[in-house]
Each structure stands twice: as C-alpha cells, then as structure tokens.
C-alpha cells in the first residue's frame, strides 16, 4: 500500500508539468481556415495553458487515432456547417475517441448541418432545427443584437446551473454571458449530462430566415427548456461540451460590452466563461483521483485476506483533486461507504480527517462493525457529483464465518449438560468399583436377570 502511494505521488509530480491531465495535443476543426483570426483570444488563452493547437479545415484528411493510439487529446469542433466529416473521420471515430479518453468540445450555429446533429444525438443532445436561433426581446444586447434581438445577454446568477459550480464557478465571471446561436435540449434521463447555461425565461427558438414576419406558431423550444451550453462527463470520465454558438468563442464576443435595454454597459463574461469551460472540459480541474484505499481490523495495520463476521474495521480512502496544475487535497462532507452484497448492508458517511499544511490528499475514514452475514462484500465508494470525476472505488473482500475455534468454549446455557456428562462419568467409575470390588455377590445376580 505504501508503495502504491509513492507511485501515485510520483505520477502526480510527472503530470504537473502539463496543465491538462489528458495531454497537450488539441485538434481544432474549422469550417474554413480563414475563420482562424476570429478566435485569436481563444488560441492565446489555450496556448498560455500549454496546448499544442493543430488547426484544420473540413477539407483536409485527418485521423484521430491509429493503432489504438490517440493522435490528439482534445478535439474542438468549431465547424457547424460541416456537411461530411473530413476524410478519415466519422461519428464512430469521434465516439471511439471519447471512449478512449479524449475530450471533445462541439459548437453549433443556426447553419448547423446534419453531421454534427447526428453526432450530438449520440450524446443525447438534440439541437433545434436548422436555421433556428434563440431570440429574446427582453434580454438582447443593444450593441450586437439590436436588429433581430438574437444576441442575448444571459445573467449567470439566474441562468447558470448551481450544481455546475465545479464546472464554471459563477462568482469568477466578471459579467453576463453573451450568446448568439442555436438552441439545444438535453435528455433529462441521461444522468451523465448537465446543462451549464440555459436561456432566459423570455427566450424562444425561432427560424432566423424571415425574422421580420410575425411568429404565428408556438415555438418548439422556449425559456428554460433551451440549453445554451451543456456538458457530459462520460462514464470513463472523458468530458464533452456542447455549445449552441461558435460566436460566443470569438474575439468580438470576448471583448464586447453587453448592454441590455435600459441597463448599464457591462463587461462580457464570455472569455472567463470559456476559459473555465475549456479548463473543465480538457481535464484541468475538478479531476479527482483515488490515491489510496486502506482497510484493516481495528488495532491492526495491514489489510487482512478476509474478515470475520462482526469484526470491527477501519476503512480509509484518500482522494486528491487536480486544479491549477497541481494536486490538492479534496474535501467534502458527503463521501459515503457502502458494503454491498447484492444489496447494501451498511451505508455510512465517511469523516474527513482534518487537513493541515502538509497534506496532499483528502483522507476520509470511518470505523464500523461488519454485518453478521458472511459472503463476498464490495466496499464501495460511489461518489458521483456533477462536474467532478466519478469516483467509483470497489474493494472486494470476503467476510467469513467464525472458525471452529473462535466460538466460545464453554457457555452457561450448557451447564446442565456438563453436569450430566460429569455425573455420568463419576457414576460409571463408582459403579465399576462397587461391581468389581464391592463384594455384592447377591445383588449382581439379580441385576443379571434382566
């Protein structure tokens, strides 16, 4: 176990040089390489965080992986108009890329083609129909969306997921978020998906072709049903982000000063928002790692090969959290341990050991008495919180019944039997003596008659 901790610390030290835990290689697909200049701030931000960015347009062939080796660690698809995948790439290869641990960011736009729609559908994300856009006649930006009310100003305090604090922390955003693009909805049944940002209550999704004509039908999506940005953390902890807008990544939106009708001019929160979002997506933060799991009987040090029923034991799990290029101790008050054999027999919240300056990992521990049931138990910590890496630590341990010599030797209930056995023995001895040397010749004869 000690060697294991050492190894993990070494591993931590090694990855600390790269900011992203997955790796520095990022591939960006653009509709046209001419669009490169529009995202200058984004590239700068990414390069500052030590990414090697490869820019490609949809016409050039590219391979995400070869011989089961990923060529890239991150994929940014900023090419909503893409009709077909570039040569060597397909929806399958992107899904395989995610399954292999690669992170993906997909940005859409009203001109979005069916290629990306079908891809996002595999992630249970459904973009609205082509040529629709999110409109809001109350929260539009007076500078960029004055004409069609399509550049909307979203207040993060109201329309950003509270649960997504681990993804984009609200209080770090300098101002509201500016959005111009397509709406999407997420499958609420898919627990891996989270909406990070959704449209204001007054917003709706409508065709952007004849925006001057009156809207004579109910919009297909409106209000909070519209997700603007949502994220998925796949079961293998690869992260995927879906944006409804490529424009929100551009310099124009980064540097804009959104101003709602009747409000004061503010600073755009887009740059910070995108920074935090990409940090999350590319595994630069909110990454948890189970450094060590220890369990042993109370009063012992080493993990036993198996436990006995009703043993008192201590379970300890150490979890580290990665952010800002370093591993830090993770702290939480809701990490639970479950003892499962088909059903949970015990479920207990673990106590965090108080942190000090030296601690590099968060240690959670508890002492409990094992159930009076033998079998093969799984000591499971199944800690899944929105935005954080899924922690699923399973230790399989057998709980055995008593050995033959572990039962109490003498029990008080059996005293009558001990007495009877002893008296029987004594009786036999006495009888033998009387029979052999007692000289009861006559009485022997009568007993013999039976």
């Amino acid at each position: 176990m000690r060697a294991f901790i050492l190894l993990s610390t070494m591993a931590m030290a090694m990855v600390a040089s790269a900011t992203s835990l997955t790796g520095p290689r990022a591939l960006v697909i653009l509709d046209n390489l001419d669009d490169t200049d529009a995202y200058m701030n984004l590239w700068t931000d990414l390069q500052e965080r030590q990414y090697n960015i490869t820019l490609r347009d949809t016409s050039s062939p590219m391979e995400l992986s070869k011989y089961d080796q990923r060529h890239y660690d991150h994929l940014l698809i900023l090419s909503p108009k893409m009709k077909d995948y570039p040569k060597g790439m397909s929806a399958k290869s992107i899904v395989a890329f995610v399954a292999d641990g690669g992170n993906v960011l997909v940005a859409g736009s009203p001109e979005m083609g069916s290629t990306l729609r079908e891809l996002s559908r595999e992630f249970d994300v459904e973009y609205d129909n082509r040529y629709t856009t999110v409109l809001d006649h109350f929260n539009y930006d007076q500078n960029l969306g004055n004409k069609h009310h399509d550049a909307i100003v979203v207040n993060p305090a109201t329309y950003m997921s509270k649960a997504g604090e681990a993804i984009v922390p609200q209080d770090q955003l300098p101002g509201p978020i500016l959005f111009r693009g397509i709406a999407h909805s997420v499958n609420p049944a898919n627990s891996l998906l989270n909406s990070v940002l959704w449209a204001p209550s007054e917003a709706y999704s409508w065709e952007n072709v004849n925006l001057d004509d009156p809207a004579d039908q109910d919009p297909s999506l409106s209000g909070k049903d519209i997700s603007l940005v949502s994220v998925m953390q796949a079961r293998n902890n690869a992260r995927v982000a879906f944006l409804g807008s490529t424009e929100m990544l551009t310099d124009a939106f980064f540097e804009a000063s959104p101003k709602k009708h009747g409000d004061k001019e503010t600073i755009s929160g887009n740059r910070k928002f995108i920074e935090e979002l990409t940090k999350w997506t590319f595994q630069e933060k909110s990454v948890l790692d189970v450094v060590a799991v220890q369990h042993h009987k109370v009063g012992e040090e080493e993990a036993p090969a198996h436990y006995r029923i009703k043993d008192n034991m201590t379970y300890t799990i150490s979890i580290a959290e990665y952010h800002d290029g370093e591993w830090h101790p993770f702290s939480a008050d809701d990490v639970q341990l479950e003892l499962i054999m088909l059903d949970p027999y015990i479920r207990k919240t673990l106590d965090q050991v108080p942190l000090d300056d030296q601690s590099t990992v968060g240690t959670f521990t508890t002492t409990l008495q094992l159930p009076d049931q033998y079998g093969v138990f799984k000591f499971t910590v199944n800690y899944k919180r929105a935005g954080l890496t899924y922690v699923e630590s399973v230790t399989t341990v057998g709980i055995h019944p008593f050995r033959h010599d572990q039962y109490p030797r003498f029990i008080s209930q059996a005293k009558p039997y001990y007495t009877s056995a002893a008296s029987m023995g004594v009786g036999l001895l006495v009888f033998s003596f009387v029979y052999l040397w007692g000289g009861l010749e006559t009485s022997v004869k009568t007993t013999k008659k039976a």
Partner: protein
Amino acid sequence: MSVETTSTVARVLKPTILILIALVAISSRLFSIIRFESVIHEFDPWFNYRTTQHLVKNGFYDFWNWFDEKSWYPLGRVVGGTVYPGIMVTSAVIHNVLHFFNFPVDIRNVCVFLAPMFSGLTAFSAYLLTKELKDSSAGLLAAAFLGVAPGYISRSVAGSYDNEGIAIFLLVFTFYLWIKAVKTGSAYFGLLTALFYFYMVSAWGGYVFITNLVPLHAFTLLLMGRYSNRLYVSYSTFYAVGTLLSMQIPFVGFQPTRTSEHMAALGVFGLLQLYAFAELVRGHVTPKQFKTLLRAGVSAVAVIAVVGLTLLSFSGVIAPFTGRFYSLYDTGYAKIHIPIIASVSEHQPTAWTSFFFDLQMLIFLFPAGVYLCFKELKDEHVFIILYSVFASYFAGVMVRLMLTLTPVVCVSAAIAYSTLLDTYLEKSDHVLGTNLKPLTATNDSNGDASTDAKPTSNGTKKPHSSGKGNAKEAKATAAKADAVESKAQAKSTAAAKRYPVFNWDSRAMVILQLTWFLFMFAWHCTYVTSGSYSSPSIVLASRQQDGSQMIIDDFREAYYWLRKNTKEDAKVMSWWDYGYQMAGMANVTTLVDNNTWNNTHIATVGKAMATSEEVSYEVLRRHDVDYVLILFGGVIGYSGDDINKFLWMIRIAEGVYPNEVKETNFFTPRGEYKVDQDATPTMKNSLMYKMSYYRFAELYGGNAVDHVRQARMPSEGPKLSVLEEAYTTENWLVRIFKVKDLDVLGRSLFDATDFDKGKIRKTKKF
C-alpha cells in the same frame, strides 16, 4: 479327498479367490483411463477433487473452516460445513501415507483410483456379510457379483471420484458389523458398527438409509417377539455412540435430534429401553401385577409420545421431512413442488429396463435369495429381507438409489446361486440332512429364548461371559434342544424327505446352465461397463463415418480458455450443472454450482437466461457477471445442451419469479417447444435462445439446421446487444459471451450496438 484336505485347500483358495475378485473389480473399472486418460469425471467429482486439493495443500483445519469465495458469488459457500468430508479425508490420508513412504503420487491419481480400490474392499465386505448369512462359498459368489455388477460400477469407475465410491463399501461393511453385533450381542461389534457408521456419515448423505434400516430391523425383531439382550446391547451401543459421532460432522450437526428422518432411530432406542425395563420389572413382580403395570405403562408412554411428537413437530423443533425425502414417497411430488430436485436426471424414477441392464441375471436370482432368507429367518435374515424390500422400493423411485439396491441383490443372488450349487453338486443326501438339522434346532432355540417366559432356564444366558458362562450357555442350549426335540425331529424328518438329485445328467444340465449364466453375466458386465459407464463425460468420443474415432474435447478447451484469458476474479455465470467443472478446471468464480443449496440463487440465474436482454442485463450487472457460458449442441447433435435443459431453468425461475418468467409463454399455441421460426416471441427474446443461436445461421450460410432438435432455423439469426461473443469452441459445444459494460455515453446498449452497426438515431425531442 478327505475332509481335511478339502478344508486345507479351501483355506488357501479362499484368500486367493478373494484377491482375484478384488483385482477383477479394480481392473474392470479402468476402461475410462485406458481409453481416455487419468482425469476426473463428470460434475460432482470435480468439486471433491478441488476440495481434496485444498485439503492436501492447506491442511485439515483450513479445510474444515474453508469459506469458498469463488462459488455461489457473492454469497460464498461454507465448504467445511456443507460437505461430507469422508472421501476427501480418505484420499488425503492415503496421499500423505504414500508420501511419508516416499511414493511421490500425485493427489489426482489418488483421487482417480480411489473408487476402484474401494470396490475391492466392497467385494470383500460382501463376502463377510454373505458368510454371516449362509456360508463362505456363498460369500465368494457375492463378492464376485458385487465386484463386477454394473449397478455399482456405474458410480465407481476410475476417475469417478464421488462419495458413493467409498460409501457403498461403508454401507455393506456397516451392515456386516451390525449383523455380527446382533448375532453375538457384543458391545465390541456394536461399537465397531457405530464407528463405521460414523465413517459412512462423514462420507455420504445416504447414511440416512442406515439410520432407518437398522432401527427398523431392531423394531421388527421386537415385533416378532425376538427381543434379546443381544439386540439390546448391540442396538443401544450402536445408537448412542453412532449418533454422538455423527453429530461431529458439521453438515449433519444437530439433525439426528431434530429432523424426522432420524426420529425412527431415536424412537426405537426409546422403545428398546422401555422393553428392557419391562423385562426387568417382569422378573420382580407377579404376572398379574405385571399385566396391570404393563397396561398402565404402555398407555402412558403412548400418550406422552404422541402428544410430545405432535407438539415438537408443530412448534418446529423437529424439522419436517425434506423435499428430497418426500419425493421418495410420492414420485410426482418433486415435479410439482421442487423443480430443482426433479431436474436432476439421477433423481428420476428408474426405468424397468435399467434393473436388468444394471444387474442382469442377479435380478431374477434376487427374489429366490430373499425366499431362501424367509426359509431360514434368523435375525440376520430378517435384516436382509427388510433391506431388500426397502432398497427395491427406493431403487424404483430414484435412479440413483439403484446403488443401495445392488449390494443386497448381489448378496441374495449369491445365496440363491450357492443354494442351487449346493443342491446339485452335493454327493449324497447325508450331508444335506446333517446340515439342516442343527440349523432348525438353533433357529427354534432362538425363537424360544425370547417368546417363552422361562426365567429358570433362560436367565443365565449372558452373551459376553467367560468360559464358565459359555459352558453354562452350552448346557442351557442343550437343555433347550432337549425340550424342543420332538419339534425339531419333526422338522428334520420333513427336510430329509426331500429327494436329492442323483442323476448326473440332470445335474449336468442345471450346472452347465448356471455356468453359462455366469459367463453371460461376466460378459454383460464387461460390456456395460465398457460401453456405458466408462465415459468421463468431459471428453466425448464419437465414431466418424469412416469408423475412426473422433475425440470431442470442447469442454476442456473452453475451460482452458477461461483459465488463460480472463482476469483472476472473473465471474462466470452458467447453469448450475457446470459450476463444479468451471471452478475445478477454469478456476473462475461461479454463481451457482452442483451443490444446489440455494434455490433462489439458481432461480435468479434461470431468470437471467429466460428473460429478455433488458431484464437479464440488470441481473447480470447486479451479480457482477463478466462472462456467460452455455452449452450448445446444435452443430454436432449433442443432446445434453442448455436449450434442452432450458425448460428446467424456466420452471425453476418461475417458482421464484412467477411474474417475470412464465413457462406457458415458451410453448407455441399448439403446446410445442419449438426453436425454429415458429418459436414464441418470448422464446426468441430470451437470452438463452439468443446466445445459443447467435451467428448460428451464418455458419451454414442461412440454411442452418439444429441437429439436436431437427429444426430448420430462420435465415436471420438473433441479435445480441448486451453481450458479445467471446469464445466458441471447435464444435460449438461451449459458447462463452462477455457481458458488456454500461455504455460510455449513457446510451442504452441497444442504441450503442445499433450505432456501431452504422444506424443513425432518429430525432427525439426532450
């Protein structure tokens, strides 16, 4: 030849013959080894082998406390407490003794050859038993019969490392000791009976047969008015010591005091004490007082016993009969109530042909032998009669119990056969006459000793007294003989009136015919042994069209694959039949195995096999199953495959999950069990069907025919989404499927599989 030379020759011949019989018994069990190799057979032996290995490796205490985490996942199995350790301990002792003398014998070979070795001992104990009943020549015949009778060979060929291998020896030997104990009335033999009874309890669940037959014998003797001090001493010793010893086996534990199966023994024990007490009282009071006392006593005891038993049974202190036991009374019981018992082929009622198949000529000599026992009707003959009646009944109810019938058949047949030989080989009637006379005399004196209340002449009879006592006894017997001389005279004259056979031609005809029967018997036994009972069943042999032999070794291929290609703690689900083999050969964790102690767990596996992919996937996930293993015989026509066993899985699952599995849904409206395109939707959707026929049609380019069920399969085979094929053996006999993980993107596995096949999902509004 003079009488002395004959006896000298006989003294040399008998051991020689016995040794030869033992050699024949051993060598006729070696077919499987010569034909295949030295492997453990079938299913249960694999468990016994695995536990023996554990015992040899880790020592006795570790074995005693062994909690096996690799079986019945995740429940585990307390092996030490759920096993009859006799056979493992026996092999381990043999192994350790051999190693002590520096014979480096592998434990596997000890296990493989254990049953044949013990069959030699069985033949010897059959000799001893029959010798007690008639004479040593009948004993030799019985030994020869039991040595080669297929009914016993079926469970004791080399490699068939099962409890029965040693249990039949113990059964016969315990019975021999019991008869000896009753005959001599010595506590020494009673104790020996108890010791061997203990060995039997440690070796096989069939010990219940002894615990019921011996008390029954005692009870019958009591009813026949043959109570004697001999009976009292032998039974009391046997019961008290035997019961205490048997309770030392953890698997038996407190059963002897708590279950109905053991109550008869306890009851007879009590009855004997009461009877003995009554006899004691009788000697001290006048007959009239005794009558009153007796009436009062009997009615009081009867009332107390009935009330007590009823109360104890209703309050649950005495467990009712187990289901396996019920099915012995009503053969239809198991089929209706406990499908898991009925599903085992060896629990089926016996077909009448198999009596002849397993016993050949013995089966018609058997009644003759029983009849001869009736003619003698000494205490030990009563025992044989009871044994044969009950064993015949049980053998008719359950195939497996043929095994307990075989020894008594051999003994009775040997008595009949040897009586025939006696009659037709005898030189003159002189011998016959002298033989018969003392026999009848002793018989009568035995009967009188218990029935007639004559304390003056009988009181001195004490079995274990010294030389003085013997003399007294002899005197008493002599007096006795005088007293009943007139009676005996009448009988012996009646016997002498039988005309012995003198003509050499009629003698020769009968003797030749009997010899011919013996030849036929030996020939039949060898034929049956070599043809039917020597297949290890983990390796199959078949003849190809050109006559050459083809060995089908798919089982070991699959198990070896599992052993080498799966992670150490991989959990493999299969029907329980293969559990022991997988644990033994593939060293993987299994969910259920041949120790069918937990019906719910087995039903859960049945449910996973019989329901649709969605339902069964949940079951598979919950039990952490990594692989599913099935048998499919459709390619080579192996009829023992899982589709043929499927109905049992469905029935067992329905017993526990009646809402999720329904047997009727697997039958077509016309009530047929079909697998082709007429199969019901439930059948086609069941995981078992899908696994069995997955890619089967492709193998034949769309024109697949299932060779077991003679069914033409649809050209499009079933699709699998939650499993993927991991391995299929050469002849498709064993198929292994891997359980897929949950989809990485959170889709259903059906959608994920469709996507991998290039299908595009339709628009969906959330």
